[in-house]
């Protein structure tokens, strides 16, 4: 067997930060746009939100496939069991949510009868038929999942900072863009 890798692959790192950046862009966009009264700007922002969200979905699927086929670097041996279990649980939940949140948005848009045309070019199929009451339920689902996602992202960031500034281990470093000689 090969020695365990010391850090994440470049692909894993790129996908991690790309997805993170897009989520940080589209959450405030989502919150801002729902408060606007109907206007061309609102329609434009809804479309941008949906395009970014679908991009997150596509990248997340890629991420999960990459993760399933590439061993991540092991956690430090000294890490207590509860932290190991906790981080594993949060990571699994985050993977689920970065798919579930955009899928709930897509479902909602289908139910509301406003299909998504990705970047104005690629029409996506409707996942469910138009149905007003289902649309309202899914709006709540999209919001609820977002709240769970944001809570876990907050915990995730707090843990990363704790490792960097309190434990002073290399947990955060190994997900940062590479020093030379990193993994492909």
């Amino acid at each position, binding site marked *: 067997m090969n020695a365990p890798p010391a850090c994440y692959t470049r692909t894993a790192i790129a996908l991690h930060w790309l997805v993170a950046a897009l989520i940080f862009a589209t959450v405030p966009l989502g919150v801002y746009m729902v408060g606007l009264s*109907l206007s*061309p700007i609102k*329609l434009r922002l809804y479309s941008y939100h949906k395009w970014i969200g679908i991009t997150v979905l596509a990248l997340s699927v890629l991420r999960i496939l990459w993760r399933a086929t590439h061993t991540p670097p092991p956690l430090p041996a000294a890490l207590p069991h509860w932290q190991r279990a906790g981080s594993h649980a949060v990571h699994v939940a985050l993977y689920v949510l970065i798919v579930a949140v955009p899928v709930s948005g897509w479902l909602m848009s289908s139910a*509301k*009868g*406003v299909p998504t045309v990705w970047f*104005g070019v690629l029409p996506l199929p409707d996942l469910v038929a138009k149905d007003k009451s289902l649309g309202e339920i899914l709006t709540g689902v999209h919001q609820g999942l977002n709240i769970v996602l944001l809570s876990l992202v907050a915990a995730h960031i707090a843990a990363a900072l704790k490792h960097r500034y309190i434990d002073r281990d290399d947990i955060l470093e190994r997900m940062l863009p590479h020093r030379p000689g990193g993994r492909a």
Partner: protein
Amino acid sequence: MSRLLALLLALLAGVSAQAAEIGQVQADKSRLSFAYTQMGVPMEGTFRRFSAKMSFDPARVPSARASIEVDVAGIDTGSAEADQEVKGKLWFDAATHPTAHFVSTAVKALGGNRFEARGKLTLKGRTLDTAAPFTFTPTPQGGAFDGAFTLKRLDYAIGEGMWADVSAVANEVLIRFHIVAGSAPAKK
């Protein structure tokens, strides 16, 4: 030759007999819808309340008449927020112009079961010449008219001010109609 003529006459007589009762429009079976794109996304809606008077005989097309009146406040865009917005001043201004109407000025045959109605379309108090091709499908009680035409909403000042931005909501709107006319079947 004379047999062919007899056959033609019989056919025409048959068709005009079928068409004779047309006039009564069955609102519950008829449909008036519109399609447009919003940020490149195809959208559709309907006008829930409209009435139509049709007088049509495929054997005497030039004397055909159609008039359609639409209660614009009956618009259904698929979202309550948008319904409210489009009844407002910038769009249909339903308070000042509660009805839209089309009145035919000429109908001509295009061959087969295809026809074309020309007429005046009035939207938001503005009247323009319009032409709509349609097909006619006879039914035992009358017939169904199916057609569509594209209008430019800005020609009628539908969507003024900020909404004149056609990159958000397209200028072209496809109007589709399915009008079932003729006395309803006896049992009802």
